[in-house]
């Protein structure tokens, strides 16, 4: 008798768990944010180039395209006349977003941090700086040449 009852409960539990797992699967397919966005949404360099062209900004150089911390937005790292920054493009590719993403948990300005990182990676082509008109401080034959741009006063 006890064995039958136990079996019954075990069977019930089994049915229930199948049910739950099926439901979870359905939720996964239909629900938001349950999967990796990249499985459903795609963007490539050409897409971004087209968007920049439409925005009359085709001179902007694309450095990198990746998922932004905000689901629904791509993060595009770019360089314009030597200045680096970030612009966001939504999954529909109908909207470009400029501005800052701020982490609610840490209060960190994620966009600014990214821009600072990009600037840190930037290198100036030193050969493009004429030095014949510069003021020289130190030994001109020194091995480490540092160019300083300043505005006194």
């Amino acid at each position, binding site marked *: 008798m006890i064995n039958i009852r136990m079996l019954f409960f075990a069977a019930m539990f089994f049915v229930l768990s199948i049910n739950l797992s099926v439901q979870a699967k359905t939720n996964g397919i239909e629900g938001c944010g349950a999967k990796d966005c990249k499985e459903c949404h795609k963007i490539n360099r050409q897409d971004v180039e087209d968007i920049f062209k439409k925005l009359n900004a085709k001179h902007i150089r694309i450095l990198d395209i990746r998922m932004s911390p905000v689901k629904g937005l791509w993060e595009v790292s770019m360089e314009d006349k030597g200045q680096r920054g970030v612009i966001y493009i939504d999954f529909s590719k109908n909207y470009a977003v400029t501005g800052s993403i701020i982490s609610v948990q840490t209060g960190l300005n994620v966009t600014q941090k990214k821009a600072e990182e990009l600037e840190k990676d930037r*290198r100036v082509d030193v050969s493009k700086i*004429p030095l014949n008109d510069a003021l020289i401080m130190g030994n001109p034959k020194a091995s*480490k040449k540092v160019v300083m741009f300043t*505005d006194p006063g």
Partner: protein
Amino acid sequence: MKAVIEKRKDIVFYIKFFPIKKETQEQIKSIACSKSLTMLDDAYAKKDIAVLDCAKNISIEKMTELAKSLGIRAVPTLIMSDGRIHSGYVQSEQLIEIIDGRR
């Protein structure tokens, strides 16, 4: 910067101008054409700078154009020989670390 070149004989600074303020434009022209470090010091110390004849040969627009084309937005901005960039004032010890690429 003076402290840096005193400590480190293998470092030399090439000073160029990125005219941001309108008030200093005339000063910059005279300092740039004379290439005088004394005049530059005086300008930093907010002393009066003599207006030199050669100043007329200096183009503020060209200076600004160059700095902007390099993506420079602020002063002072340092550019190391490998192209690394640093903006803002720092102590001489820190400056040496930046120049050496240890920071």
